[in-house]
């Protein structure tokens, strides 16, 4: 479990396993039932980077309360008129960071990408690429995407799919009960409105493209402890939450175990099996043209035995005699 990507994402450990995860684009998704912000706060607490937070939905004062000790700047998108102005502000911020803090790594957080696209349309996709291009090795972009917030495009393009393709890492944060309901494990217990944004636990589904191009899939849970009025996450296996929420979780685990080897001849409309009698008859059958039964020394000899039929014209002459080499 200590090799889990989620632990690496939250705590920054196992850098060797996930070399390319500290650059590129992260699509951090959440739903109305469960916010991704607690995960993001922990990412920020555990990494000494410089953060530029683009506040489209959230207020700078919210980040002041949540990540007070981190080194960051908030840019209020509301105060700017174009994406170019926003990009220029981000570049100025990065330059200032190098000068004042000398922190190598910069992380740009956009909260939220839904609202930015709603306002500026497809130009935002180019804008994201331009941010990344400022310095590919030293910049990571985290896009907060709300799954339940519809983005209507004029030609019905699936914006989420486009963003997912642009991203190296896709993380979906779900409410534990909703996750179990989607799996069909918790059908009788509906999630109550008051259970929204749980500060107890949650489940993450991760898709990460490794440096080699191989895709890593992971589903991992986290539990939260409140310390000094801050939500502190620890990564746990999903089974721990199954024990907590699903009374008959053991039955579910039994159902999930791989069953005995499947018999391919079962449930067919025709018979593929042989009875003992049929097997004996088959073994006794003398096959024409096959001398294996008579002569055991012929294995690997490569000789061809030709028995001409009565009607065959057998010619002893060399068929290649007329070739002139």
């Amino acid at each position, binding site marked *: 479990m200590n090799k889990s990507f989620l632990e690496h994402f939250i705590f920054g450990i196992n850098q060797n396993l996930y070399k390319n995860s500290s650059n590129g684009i992260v699509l951090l998704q959440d739903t*109305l039932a469960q*916010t991704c*912000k607690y995960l993001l706060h922990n990412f920020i607490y555990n990494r000494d980077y410089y953060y530029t937070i683009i506040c489209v*939905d*959230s*207020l700078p*004062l*919210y980040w002041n*309360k*949540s990540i007070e000790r981190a080194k960051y700047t908030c840019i*209020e998108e*509301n105060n700017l008129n174009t994406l170019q102005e926003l990009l220029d502000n981000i570049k100025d911020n990065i330059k200032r960071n190098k000068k004042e803090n000398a922190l190598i790594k910069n992380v740009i957080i956009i909260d*939220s990408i839904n*609202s930015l696209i*709603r*306002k500026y349309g497809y130009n935002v996709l180019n804008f994201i690429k331009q941010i990344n291009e400022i310095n590919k090795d030293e910049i990571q972009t985290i896009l907060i995407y*709300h799954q*339940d*917030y*519809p983005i*209507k495009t004029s030609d019905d393009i699936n914006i989420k799919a486009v963003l997912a393709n642009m991203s190296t890492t896709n993380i979906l944060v779900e409410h534990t009960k909703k996750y179990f309901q989607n799996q069909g494990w918790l059908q009788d217990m509906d999630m*109550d*409105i*008051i*259970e*929204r*944004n749980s*500060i107890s636990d949650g489940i993450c589904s991760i898709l990460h493209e490794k440096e080699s191009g191989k895709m890593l899939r992971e589903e991992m849970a986290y539990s939260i402890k*409140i310390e000094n*009025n*801050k*939500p502190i996450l620890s990564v746990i296996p999903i089974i721990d939450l199954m024990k907590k929420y699903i009374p008959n979780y053991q039955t579910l685990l039994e159902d999930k175990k791989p069953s005995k080897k499947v018999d391919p001849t079962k449930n067919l409309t025709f018979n593929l099996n042989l009875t003992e009698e049929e097997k004996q008859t088959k073994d006794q059958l003398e096959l024409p043209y096959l001398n294996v039964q008579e002569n055991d020394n012929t294995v690997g000899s490569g000789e061809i035995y030709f028995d001409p039929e009565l009607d065959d014209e057998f010619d002893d002459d060399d068929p290649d005699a007329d070739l002139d080499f």
Partner: protein
Amino acid sequence: MYAPIDNVLPNQNGKSILIADTIFADAAFLVNHFLSKSIKNKDGNVILISFTSNYTQYESIQKKMGNNLKLYKDTEKLNFIDANLISTEKNNISLDALYTRIKNILGETSFESTTLILDDITHLVYIEYPMNEILDFEYKCRNICKKYNCDLVVKIHKDVCETSDADSISINHKQLLNYLINSYEYIIEINELESGYTDDIQGQLSFARGVSCTQYDFNPRLYHYKINENPAFSKFYAKGLIEGTI
């Protein structure tokens, strides 16, 4: 009168509260409750922006709650702004002008705590006010309330559109609703009873944690309620409990 629900939300100033109701479970009683609470607070004042109701409606309900709004009208204590005629046409009130007025009032107030109430923001979607301007206005109000440590209470309907509706009003309504739910600290939802109808209970009232809530000792709660004409006789019950029965 509404003592059981008064203690659910933290007492400190600077909260953002979203009230989401339905056609069959109206939250007008909650808006009036927050209005009454602010009026009764001697250190506080209120800016009430009404997009749908007129002043006399609030006046008559507040009278039953023990508040004489006539004493406060056009004073610093109660700033009532009738935004029923809001539109993008010239010579009508625009959201920009409304925001400027709010900013001026907050800048000049001598009260310690102010409550800004927007009742009901869905109206802007119905009149097809440009979405970007609605969101811009809402963000600026939320921002300025945070800066001046004021409470912001916004009411929205949540059941106008079906999920499959493809017209622009339904899409904008859903966008606005989800945007607000993703931005506020406390979400109060009023719903009909899950399990049918009864004379003793009108609906249920949920207090949930919003995305931007940083008070981790806040306990989400669910109540069943019955509102009486005389608010003193309104009742709130924890779910499953009703006087005399379990």
